[in-house]
């Protein structure tokens, strides 16, 4: 190799990125800028609304203060109902997610078709938001907590099953082979070798999902699926802002408490 060739390959000045890398970087930046311009321009932003937003906000705050604490006894029952919806929905999701996870994990599913079905169910469950599931189940069961429980369960099944399926796929082969070597049937292998391995993941994600569900079920009432959301929505529609503040505060407290409880329990378990 000639002297000039070496000098060309090893430049004098250090640069962090090769020309190709920096070109790619600029390309990404340009793409993002274009996407931003497209998305903002097409949203038809009415800037006039921004101009008086702070006035509106101040007005709202003044209407909210002082909170009407006498409303508190009315919303204790719905708050408990909200917690019940989250708990029962999570419980149903837990029961349903175990078989679904085995169906959707590559190493435990029967064949390609069952795997595809399992994956499709996972995606469908996870893609649809809890509140939209709420809309569907209110149409089926009528308004009330049952629709809320079904909605929470429908959304959580996919979440729990997805994480559990990933844990199953990462399960230790050795233990599975050991149980197989004893002549165990497939079901026995799943029960004795796979399930104990994924149990910590299952319990941990279930508790985690429960506290997400408490937060989700606080708004299920907007579509008529029970819980505190109904009272929040009614108070807003009646412009009873002092009640709204009370409801918001209680939701805040309940969600924070459930989050703390869930974090504590998970820290103890895993």
């Amino acid at each position, binding site marked *: 190799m000639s002297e000039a060739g070496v000098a060309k390959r090893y430049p004098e000045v250090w640069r962090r990125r090769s020309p190709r890398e920096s070109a790619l970087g600029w390309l990404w930046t340009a793409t993002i800028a274009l996407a931003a311009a497209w998305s903002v321009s097409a949203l038809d932003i009415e800037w006039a609304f921004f101009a008086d937003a702070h006035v509106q*906000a101040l007005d709202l705050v003044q209407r909210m203060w002082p909170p009407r604490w006498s409303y508190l006894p009315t919303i204790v029952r719905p708050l408990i109902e909200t917690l019940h919806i989250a708990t029962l929905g999570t419980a149903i999701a837990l029961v349903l997610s175990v078989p679904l996870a085995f169906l959707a994990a590559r190493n435990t599913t029967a064949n390609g078709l069952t795997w595809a079905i399992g994956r499709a169910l996972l995606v469908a469950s996870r893609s649809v938001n809890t509140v939209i599931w709420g809309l569907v189940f209110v149409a089926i069961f009528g308004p009330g907590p049952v629709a809320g429980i079904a909605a929470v369960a429908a959304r959580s099944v996919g979440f729990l099953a997805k994480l559990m399926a990933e844990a199953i796929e990462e399960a230790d082969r050795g233990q599975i082979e050991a149980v197989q070597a004893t002549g165990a049937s497939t079901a026995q292998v799943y029960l004795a070798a796979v399930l104990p391995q994924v149990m910590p993941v299952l319990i941990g994600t279930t508790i985690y999902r429960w506290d997400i569900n408490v937060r989700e079920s606080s*708004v299920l009432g907007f579509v008529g699926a029970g819980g505190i959301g109904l009272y929040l929505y009614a108070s807003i529609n009646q412009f009873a802002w002092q009640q709204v503040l009370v409801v918001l505060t209680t939701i805040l407290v309940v969600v924070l408490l459930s989050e703390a409880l869930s974090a504590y329990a998970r820290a*103890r378990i895993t």
Partner: protein
Amino acid sequence: MSAAAYPTVWRPPALFGSRTRQRIAVSCGIAYFVWSIIDLNVDVARMLAGFPRALNMLGRMFPPDFGRWALLLDGMVESLQMALAATLVGALLSVPLGLAAARNLAPKPIYVVARGFIVLGRTLHEVIIAIFCVKLFGFGPVAGLITLGFASAVFLAKMLAEDIENVRLGPVEAIRATGAGFGQMVTYSIVPQVLARTVGMLIYRLDANVRHSTVIGIVGAGGIGQTLSASFSRYDYDFSAAILLSIIALVALGEGFSDWVRRKLR
């Protein structure tokens, strides 16, 4: 030492410290569970009546009606735009908020305020925030944009703050030792350490925003949720089915894209 002190049968380790505490925790859990079933007073007859209705509804959902595809497309594009713009707004806002909420960078009072803001912002559901934004900014996608932008900013700031708290201190000290100011220190020692994970989080948030953008329309904040909610209240179930299928397809695509990008980044 007697042999009795060493148990001959293996038992799994107890949760919550001791076996008694574990029993108490588990029985409290079961008691609450039973109470919740009794307390809700579920009307079984009405629940059973729901199943034929579910079949009926499924029947009316099939075949999904893609005839009004123009309306559907409008809503989907609006949702997508809301999600994109909100992710960008959130990303921009999350940088100062994340820096302020990092224990090892920010002065104590600023840290406490920023953390408090993040905790409060994460607690309230997007739909609740959306209601207020609709009150403040009127119906339409702007309210949705601000809701999702706020939620993204809080989420990304939390993740960013945690990443910053976990950076290795060596590079930070090295840059400081050269006499660099705060801005230079952040640019040259912290940014390189947190950039990859932050971009990953950003992509994840984009995907989450697509999912959330489909729901905040229910309270009037624009996007496909508004169309979906309207179709449900008109018992237009075949159109609802078409919308639901499109949402599932969009979210699945978004998730696939997000997985792909994050795998590339690793």
